[in-house]
C-alpha cells in the first residue's frame, strides 16, 4: 500500500516536473492525486476534497511565482506540505495546568484505543517534568484494567488510587471523586483519571462518562484515538464531542505503518488540537505531537524523525550501556549479550520496513529488498535454542549439543557451527581490543546489502553475510526453512 501511494505521488510529481511550466489543468490533476492519496490514508472524503480544493486555490494564486522558480513541481509540493502541517498544528498547544492544583486530566475513547497504557505514559512524562501525578483507576469494566494500571503505576513509581477491584464491581464516578480528594490531601499536583472504553453509540456509558466529568471537572479531557482507525473516526469523535466533550486529542500506536489520516479528519471536524502521540509499547514511547511529522506521514512521505528516534532508542538503550560496562570490567562478551543485541535490533522493527519508511524509498527499492531480515531471525533462533549455560560458555558446545540446537532452531548444524565460529572469532578480537585498543562500538549491526553501509562498529568476523533474497522464498521463517531443507 505504501508503495502504491508513494508511487502515485512520485509519478504525479514527476509528470509535473517533465512539464516544466505548469498550467491550471496540471494543478487540478495533482489535486486529484492528492485527494486520492488522502482517502487511502483514511481521511474523510469531504475533508480530503476541501483540502485538495485549498491546494488548487493556493497553487493557482501563486502560479506565476511558482513558474518563475527553478522547480515548479517542488514548489507545489511545498505548498501541500505546508498547508497540511499548518492544519495539523493549527491551534496546537501544550497541556493546560490548573491555576489551583491539582490539574485534573481525564481520558476517554473507544475500547482498545490504548487509554490505560497512555495513562502511564502521560504520568511518566509529567513526572519527568517535575510534577507529582496520581493515577486514578476508574475503568471498572474491562477485566483487570485496574490491575493493569496498578502494574504500570508500580513500574514508573507513580501511585495509583484504586479502591475498587473493577471487573464490573464499583462505581467509577465515586472512585474518580474520591481520587481527586485523595490527591488534594496528599498534594499531588496532577490527577490522571483512566476510564472505561466506550462506543460512541453507547448512550448509557456516555452518560457515565459525563457523570465522571461532572464529578471531577477536568482541566483537560482528552480523547484517545488509535492511528489505525478508519472513517469511523469522524462519527466517533463527533459522538464523543457531543456527548462528554473533549479538549484535546491523543494519537496512539503511531509506531506502526498506519498513515493516520483520521487525525486530519478529527481535527477538521472537531477543531480540537492533537496534544500527544504515543509511539510504542514501552512506557517511555510517548511524545508531544509534531504536526510536520504527521503531515509527511499522511502524505506517504515517511516519518523520518520518529523512525530515527525509534532506532536510537532501540540501539542506545540499556543494552549498550550494560555491554560497555561489562566490557570495561573485563568480563567476556557472551552469546547472551549477542542475543540481547539482536533483540535490540529487532525491536527497531523490520529493517527493510524501516528503510522503506524513508522518503524516496522507491528509488532504492531493490537494495532494500536485498536486505535480509531473515538472516537476523535465523541467527536469533539458533542462539535462543541454546541453554543459558551454553550461551555464556560456547566451549560447552560439543557435537551432540550442536545437533540439538540445530534441531531446536530448525537450522542446519553447519549454520550453528558457522555462527559459533564467527562468534568465537569476534570474542577473541574483543579480548585483544580490550588488552590494547579501547572500547569498540556497538557490535552486532549487520551490513546493509548493496547500500554500502558498513556494519556499525561490528568486528568483521561477526558481520552477517547478506544473502540476496530470492523471490520464491517465503517470508515466513518456518516455511522458508522447509523450502531450504
Amino acid at each position, binding site marked *: 500500500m505504501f508503495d502504491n501511494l508513494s508511487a502515485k505521488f512520485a509519478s504525479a510529481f514527476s509528470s509535473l516536473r517533465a512539464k516544466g511550466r505548469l498550467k491550471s489543468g496540471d494543478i487540478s490533476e495533482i489535486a486529484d492525486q492528492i485527494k486520492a492519496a488522502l482517502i487511502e490514508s483514511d481521511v474523510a472524503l469531504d475533508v480530503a476534497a476541501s483540502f485538495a480544493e485549498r491546494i488548487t486555490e493556493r497553487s493557482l494564486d501563486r502560479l506565476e511565482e511558482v513558474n518563475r522558480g527553478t522547480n515548479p513541481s517542488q514548489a507545489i509540493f511545498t505548498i501541500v506540505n505546508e498547508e497540511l502541517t499548518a492544519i495539523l498544528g493549527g491551534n496546537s498547544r501544550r497541556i493546560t495546568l490548573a491555576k489551583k492544583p491539582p490539574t485534573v486530566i481525564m481520558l476517554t475513547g473507544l475500547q482498545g484505543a490504548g487509554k490505560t497504557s497512555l495513562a502511564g505514559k502521560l504520568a511518566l512524562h509529567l513526572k519527568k517534568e517535575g510534577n507529582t501525578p496520581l493515577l486514578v483507576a476508574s475503568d471498572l469494566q474491562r477485566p483487570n484494567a485496574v490491575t493493569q494500571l496498578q502494574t504500570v503505576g508500580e513500574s514508573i513509581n507513580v501511585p495509583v488510587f484504586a479502591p475498587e477491584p473493577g471487573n464490573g464491581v464499583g462505581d467509577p464516578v465515586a472512585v474518580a471523586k474520591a481520587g481527586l480528594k485523595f490527591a488534594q490531601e496528599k498534594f499531588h499536583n496532577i490527577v490522571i483519571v483512566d476510564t472505561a472504553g466506550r462506543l460512541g453509540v453507547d448512550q448509557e456509558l456516555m452518560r457515565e462518562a459525563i457523570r465522571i466529568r461532572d464529578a471531577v471537572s477536568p482541566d483537560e479531557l482528552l480523547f484517545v484515538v488509535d492511528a*489505525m482507525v478508519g472513517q*469511523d473516526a469522524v462519527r466517533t469523535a463527533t459522538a464523543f464531542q457531543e456527548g462528554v466533550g473533549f479538549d484535546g486529542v491523543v494519537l496512539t500506536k503511531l509506531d506502526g505503518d498506519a498513515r493516520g489520516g483520521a487525525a486530519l479528519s478529527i481535527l477538521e471536524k472537531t477543531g480540537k488540537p492533537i496534544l500527544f502521540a504515543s509511539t510504542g509499547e514501552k512506557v517511555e514511547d510517548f511524545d508531544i505531537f509534531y504536526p510536520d511529522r504527521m503531515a509527511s506521514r499522511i502524505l506517504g512521505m515517511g516519518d523520518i524523525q520518529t523512525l530515527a528516534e525509534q532506532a536510537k532508542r532501540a540501539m542506545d538503550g540499556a543494552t549498550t550501556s550494560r555491554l560497555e560496562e561489562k566490557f570495561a570490567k573485563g568480563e567476556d562478551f557472551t552469546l547472551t549479550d549477542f542475543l540481547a543485541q539482536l533483540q535490540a535490533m529487532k525491536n527497531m522493527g523490520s529493517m527493510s520496513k524501516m528503510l522503506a519508511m524513508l522518503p524516496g524509498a522507491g528509488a532504492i527499492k531493490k537494495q532494500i529488498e536485498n536486505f535480509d531480515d531473515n538472516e537476523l531471525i535465523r541467527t536469533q533462533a539458533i542462539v535462543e535454542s541454546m541453554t543459558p549455560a551454553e550461551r555464556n560458555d560456547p566451549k560447552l558446545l560439543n557435537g551432540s549439543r550442536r545437533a540439538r540446537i540445530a534441531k531446536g532452531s530448525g537450522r542446519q548444524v553447519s549454520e550453528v557451527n558457522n555462527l559459533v565460529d564467527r562468534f568465537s572469532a569476534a570474542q577473541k578480537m574483543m579480548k585483544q581490543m580490550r588488552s590494547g585498543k579501547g572500547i569498540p562500538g556497538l557490535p552486532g549491526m549487520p551490513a546493509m546489502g548493496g547500500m554500502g553501509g558498513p556494519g556499525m562498529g561490528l568486528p568483521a568476523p561477526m558481520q552477517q553475510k547478506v544473502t540476496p533474497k530470492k523471490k520464491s522464498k517465503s517470508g515466513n521463517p518456518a516455511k522458508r526453512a522447509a523450502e531450504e531443507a
Partner: protein
Amino acid sequence: MALFSKILNRFRGGSLTSADWDEFESNLIEADLGGRLTQEIISLAKSARPDDIEAELTQLLSAKLSTADRRISLTPGRTTSILVVGVNGTGKTTSVAKMMKYFKDQKLAVVVAAADTFRAAAIDQIQTWGERIGVPVVVGKSEGDPAAVAFDGIKRALAEQADIFIVDTAGRLHTKSGLMDELAKIRRVVEKASPIDEVLLVVDATTGQNGIAQAKLFTESVQVTGLILTKMDGSAKGGIALAIEDETGIPVKFIGLGESAADLRLFDAQSYIQGLLL
C-alpha cells in the same frame, strides 16, 4: 446501515444528480471500503440499468468475498488448536473468552493458554474470564516466554484430550519483525505437539485501510486462516473486512458484538452484504 438504500430509491425514481453520486461515493468511503473498491462499485452502478442495479451490486460485492470455508475446522478425534493474533487492543482476549463460551456451550472441552505475557495484567484478564466461564487457563510467568506457555497449554490440552485448545497472544504491530517472529515461534512450538488448525486474526471494525497491511503481514508470518471482526456493535460498518477478503482471500469467521462472553456470532456473509446494501 442504509448505505445504498437512498441511491437505489433515487435510481428507481429517475435520474441522479452529481450531488447524488457524490453522496454515494462518500457513503462507500465512509464504510472503509477503500478508494479502489469504491471506484469499482461506482462505475458499475453508473453503467447498470435501474431495474438490475440492486442485483448487480449484490453480485459485485459477493464476488469480492472470500470463497474459503467460514466454519472453524474441527477435526474429530483430536484436539483442534486455534492461535489468536492481532494488533494491540483489537479485542483478542475478549474474543478468546467469547470462543471459550461458544465451544463450551457446544459441550466441547476447552483449554486456553495465556500467552500474552507482555501486557501488564493480561494474564489476570484472561484468567478472570476463564473463571467466569469455567474453562481452564494455563498461565506462565509475566514477561516469561510466550512459546513456553503455549507449549504447556497444548500439553495439558492433549493430556486432558480437550476438543479445543486456544492460545491468546500479546497484541503486536505487524511491522515489528521481532514480535512477528515470536509469533511464528509460538506456532512452531505448539506444532511440535499437535497441529495448529486455525490462526484467527482479530480486526477491529473501526480499522481503516491499515487493516489490509495487518492481514498481509500476519499471514506472512503465521498463515492466517480467518478473521474475527470485533466491535460490530459500534457505528463502524466494518467495510475493511470486505477489502481484506478481496485483497487476501482470508474469510471472516466470527464477529464480535459487545463486551460480554455471549457477544459472538458466526459471520454471515449474506447479511453482511445486505447490511451494506440496504
